[in-house]
């Protein structure tokens, strides 16, 4: 086909480029419409992606279907107890919960000082004294909240629990503050509240983590119990449900069981506090998905509006150029050639503005990325627009540009050359 040949002809593009370059005002106006559309699309969906990535990072260490449960105080009198009683969670609850809530995959009781109760621990190494939050943990905890341990170290294991070993995992900051730069803390002894502990690992702090700090010290639960004389008391439980379980139902069940054990009214909503990460996470992913969808819709709508704008302006320009097109046809341009030229002008304008919009959008995203890079408390990471979306946008623009270009193209050839030439 003749018109197919013209598309790939260097001279066709020369003609188109000539016409586009010489009608500068028209070109600029048309370009702005689509450029704006694709720019909005790219920045919005890129930002949505950034937000999505940010939330992912925020929670990357935590099992998605995990929750925390802690005692508060009762608000309904029950079984002879007055209100205002604080139920006391115990290690024995672990077994009961495991039995009665089979959806639980891991359950880790935790005690802490410096966080929920008690003062932080004072830690001494050589002549340096510092205070840090300290946690009593079971190895299970690291199955729920992944603790990255620096090379050469490890987290608390079952033997540590069983033998009530005086070992500890320290934070990055703790290492920096207590040890020399080239000194390996592993195997060294530090004094925690006057008891010597051997350092077995340094955990890598995840800035997005939100729940813990870079100075935390983890020791075996049983050792903590002895050190601070906490008996069988547990500050809170960290629970992870199996992946296919409904986290909200599990949360409810856990609370029900706890209420029964601790003789709390089944209707007492205040006796136990909980934070359901799974639920929050679902809500957040829903939000991010919504953002992505919204940006898709808004972006697409603006692109369509922009392309229609191009069609409009080409229509006007075809009318303005009636005479020129008449001359071209007098000189031997076939209707097909005229049509292809107009359509290609449309596609060319659409694509040029699209690409400019993409570049501009990417540029803005890069700037946003630059400024949010160091914000560890703002969930925003690596805002990118996936390549398939960009390619998809380009394809959509090409198709739309072609379709919309057909209208002025048809209009250009529908007028007889003789009438076109007569036009003033």
């Amino acid at each position, binding site marked *: 086909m003749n018109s197919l040949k013209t598309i790939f002809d260097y001279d066709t593009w020369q003609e188109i480029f000539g016409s586009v370059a010489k009608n500068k005002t028209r070109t600029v106006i048309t370009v702005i419409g689509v450029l704006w559309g694709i720019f909005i699309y790219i920045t919005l969906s890129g930002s949505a992606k950034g937000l999505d990535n940010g939330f992912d990072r925020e929670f990357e260490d935590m099992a998605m279907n995990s929750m925390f449960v802690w005692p508060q105080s009762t608000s309904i009198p029950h079984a002879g107890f007055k209100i205002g009683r604080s139920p006391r969670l115990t290690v024995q609850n672990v077994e009961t919960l495991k039995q009665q809530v089979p959806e639980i995959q891991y359950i880790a009781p935790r005690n802490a000082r410096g966080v929920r109760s008690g003062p932080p621990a004072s830690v001494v190494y050589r002549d340096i004294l510092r205070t840090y939050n300290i946690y009593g943990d079971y190895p299970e905890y690291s199955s729920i909240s992944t603790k990255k341990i620096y090379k050469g170290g490890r987290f608390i294991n079952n033997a540590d629990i069983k033998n009530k070993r005086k070992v500890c995992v320290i934070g990055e900051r703790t290492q920096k503050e207590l040890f020399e730069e080239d000194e390996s803390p592993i195997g060294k002894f530090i004094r925690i509240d006057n008891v010597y502990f051997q350092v077995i690992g340094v955990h890598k702090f995840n800035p997005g983590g939100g729940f813990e700090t870079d100075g935390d010290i983890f020791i075996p639960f049983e050792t903590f119990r002895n050190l601070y004389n906490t008996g069988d008391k547990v500050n809170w439980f960290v629970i992870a449900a199996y992946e296919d379980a409904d986290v909200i139902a599990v949360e409810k069940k856990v609370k029900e069981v706890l209420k029964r054990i601790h003789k709390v009214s089944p209707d007492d909503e205040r006796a136990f506090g909980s934070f359901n990460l799974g639920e929050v996470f679902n809500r957040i992913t829903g939000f991010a998905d919504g953002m992505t969808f919204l940006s898709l819709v808004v972006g697409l709508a603006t692109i369509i509006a922009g392309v229609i704008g191009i069609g409009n302006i080409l229509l006007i320009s075809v009318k303005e150029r009636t*005479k020129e097109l*008449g001359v071209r*046809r*007098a000189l*031997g341009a*076939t209707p097909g050639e005229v049509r292809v030229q107009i359509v290609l002008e449309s596609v060319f304008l659409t694509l040029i503005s699209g690409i400019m919009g993409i570049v501009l959008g990417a540029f803005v995203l890069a700037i946003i990325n630059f400024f949010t890079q160091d914000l560890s408390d703002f969930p925003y990471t690596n805002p990118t627009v996936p390549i398939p979306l960009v390619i998809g946008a380009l394809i959509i623009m090409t198709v739309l540009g072609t379709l919309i270009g057909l209208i002025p193209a048809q209009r250009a050839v529908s007028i007889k050359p*003789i009438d076109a*030439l007569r036009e003033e």
Partner: protein
Amino acid sequence: MIQINNLHKSYKIGSNSLHVLKGIDLKIDEGELVAIMGSSGSGKSTLLNILGMLDIADDGKYLLDNVLIQDLTETTAANYRNRFLGFVFQSFNLINYKNALENVALPLYYQGLGRKIRQQKALEYLEKVGLKDWATHLPSELSGGQKQRVAIARAMASQPKVLLADEPTGALDSNTSNEVMGLIQKINEEGKTILVVTHEIEIAHMCKRIVTLKDGVIVEDKKTNQTLIDTNV
């Protein structure tokens, strides 16, 4: 070269029909330089446009170089125009954003010639009309006479069989008119068949033959004593 028999053309204006050409018979041989005269509205342009395949006759026969021109689609008409015909208009009709060279090269582009050849040929024809040094100038930077010479170069560049000029000097003063007519005579001397529509009797006398239209028919057809222009362009 051109032969038409019993050519009719009417325009519809609303429910009325205006019979413009009422049976034209005309034979033009190769190498002729014919002026078509007649009062305004007599159908000169209509005739020229039909000969130029920009318009279609309602009835009659048209042979161009022994090829019967009939049942033209827009595409074949475009191809014929491109290969057989060159147009010169009163208002020059140069493309304003293309320079002189690009304007001249345009019909060659539609002939499908390569860029190099187009440039080379276009330059050659610009030289022929004495405007080689103006190749890179836009139409807006040229005088009326220069524009018309560029238009003539453009019409000639595709090496047509016939050159059709509708009042080529209509927008020019008498000096430049002479210049342009001199150029047309020169091209005619080289053997090209040329039709010139004109109002001015002086211009008509620079042609070899004058055909006069009145009310849609040819009322006079005579040879002239051609006034030759001393070309010193």
